[in-house]
């Protein structure tokens, strides 16, 4: 454990440079450059405002300030969380395959590009959360619970990174994984209360008791926790926090162990 942390720390410069490479390379060659990382979420927000504000209208719970019931903001809160999870989970696959030509020429730990790509995601996530905070300030729905956001983000990052590491190393051998993951994540997206309020599912517990399994989905739990602190301005509860902490920690340890076990030979698969 400490050895792993020491390894990561020793290569922090390399990890940082991989993150840097990803961020700098992302919007190069485009006219607007890094403005896209702001335009993209803005456009998403606008689209959802249009679709869910006028056409599809879900019942929206009242926010923590007692008056806010704007569904697009409610949706965007969850979407930002999902985007972060999605980018970290899938980014590892691309970055490991992308580092293939390098790994065949130079000896360096394969976890560096994977962790680097996860770090690079923070750039986009910071922008999206910044945007979200501005929106919440504008509608005056703020509270001390916002301080929980970094803690939750850190835990979600551990979960997503652990999952991403497993996927990255398996994808190096079987490139189908990337396509399967696209499908499965699409499924997971709708299996989590992102574009709908969780009440749509919980209301059916009496009719279908097996639906309770729904809440064990860590992404459901994360989305709810983020909505608790950002939308409802409530503490997510120790039970949920403990569940998420355990799940995320286990995922990270499993992912890291699996990755390191296979990493020594990954240069032959790339």
């Amino acid at each position, binding site marked *: 454990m400490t050895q792993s942390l020491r390894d990561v720390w020793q290569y922090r*410069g390399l990890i940082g440079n991989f993150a840097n490479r990803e961020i700098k390379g992302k919007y190069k060659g485009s006219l607007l450059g890094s403005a896209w990382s702001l335009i993209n979420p803005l456009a998403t927000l606008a689209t959802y405002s249009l679709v869910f504000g006028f056409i599809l209208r879900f019942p929206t719970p009242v926010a923590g300030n007692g008056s806010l019931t704007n569904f697009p903001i409610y949706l965007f809160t969850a979407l930002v969380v999902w985007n972060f999870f999605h980018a970290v989970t899938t980014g590892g696959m691309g970055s490991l395959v992308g580092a293939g*030509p*390098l790994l065949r020429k*130079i000896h360096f730990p394969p976890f560096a590009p994977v962790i680097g790509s996860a770090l690079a995601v923070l750039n986009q996530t910071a922008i999206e959360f910044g945007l979200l905070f501005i929106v919440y300030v504008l509608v005056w729905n703020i509270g001390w619970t916002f301080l929980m956001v970094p803690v939750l983000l850190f835990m979600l990052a551990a979960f997503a990174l652990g999952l991403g590491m497993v996927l990255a190393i398996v994808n190096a051998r079987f490139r189908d994984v990337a396509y399967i993951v696209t499908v499965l994540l699409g499924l997971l997206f709708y299996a989590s209360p992102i574009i709908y309020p969780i009440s749509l599912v919980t209301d059916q517990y009496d009719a279908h008791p097996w639906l309770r399994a729904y809440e064990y989905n860590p992404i459901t739990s994360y989305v709810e926790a983020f909505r608790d602190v950002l939308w409802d301005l409530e503490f997510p509860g120790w039970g949920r926090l403990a569940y998420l902490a355990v799940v995320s920690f286990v995922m990270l340890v499993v992912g890291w162990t699996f990755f390191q076990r296979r990493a020594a030979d990954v*240069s032959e698969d790339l």
Partner: protein
Amino acid sequence: MTTYRSDEVAEQVTTAAEPDVAISVRDVTKKFRLHNDRKTNLKELFSGRERHPRSEEFWALKGVTLDIPRGKTYGLIGHNGSGKSTLLKLVAGIHRPSSGSITANGRVSAMLELGAGFHPEMSGRDNIYLNGSILGMTRKQIDAAMDRIIEFSGLEEFIDTPVKVYSSGMYVRLGFAIAVNLEPEILIIDEVIAVGDEAFQRRCFDHLYELRRKGVTIVLVTHSLGLVADLCDEAAWLDGGNLRRVGPAREVVDDYLAAVNEREAAAAAKAEAAARAEAAATGAPTVAEPTAEMEGSTPRRGSGEIRVTGVEYLDSEGVERPFLSTGHPGTVRVSYEAAVDLPEVTFGLAFVHESGVQAAGPNSGYGPDTLAIPAGRGAVDFAVDAVALQPGEFLLSVAIVDRGHTYDHLDRAFVLKVRAEEAVTEPGLVRMPGRWTLNVAAPTVEH
């Protein structure tokens, strides 16, 4: 001390860290799966269980044991596919040996490809940080070396532009400039020095010699045997994944060359025997007839009273050989067929290097030295005591003339291969024989 072992659990390394050994390779094998029809599909993973395994195994190294001494320059030679690059990658830690162990006493820096990992969209300066950290430098080290790197690469004006606009030469120069600033303890190089223009290559070699002088252990894979003989102290010759020979570089190179020449001669003899057998089977004459296929680079010219019918290369015993050897006796035999008696004939040869430069153009002489050729067949020999041409491929032109009149002229119609029996250490197209003497000036008398 870094040890790359086949096993996942690193056992206690029993070999005592000998201070004079930089890298010790112990009974190393490496197996690769051949990926010609690789199972990249999950579908095949699940459905192909009963079928014959598709991926074949290939043993790139079959048990190699050697010690690379500290502070020495070590060359790895062998044919393509002999396993030398694989061994290099194992030493560099890129792959893991399938069995056996490799122990490196010191920091290993590998230069297997210059500018690997450059991001085309990032500036030269950003790429120095990226590449430097991939090669194991800390940010502090890179900052300290930044000016030296930029200066060495000679890319001051371009260092803040994206590397995608760099020429391939600039790309490599920047890559090398980063690599040389690594201050390695053990440096591993794979042919990368054979790039760039003359001036840049010279700088690279200067740098290698300087590293050598500083006591850096250098492991080098190259096909330039002259370089191995020149730069390396010791060498290992790999053949089909096995170690054929280890020893002083020059001896290993000489042995290797002898084996290559032998192999090529055998292949040529086999091909000739096959051709002869075919000719015998079809009843065709074995002696080459002057046919249309004897065409040179320009159409055959001449009035045709006498015509060249073939060219052979002979060694000192008069045995026909597929090539001549630098520094050894050799003969070029030109066969002819004359329709009439010709009293004054001059034979001329031109040796044109594959680069297009004419290296030599001997002729049989004019005036009193002209040859009187009777009608019929015959041959004219041009013999030298020591072939001056350096190894390489030459094109041979043959002309039969009488002062201004051309009987026959075949422009660059024959290929002459010149081989080295020993390591080549002189550059140039020809070896210039001469004597070197030292003349120390007499000390001037002080008044």
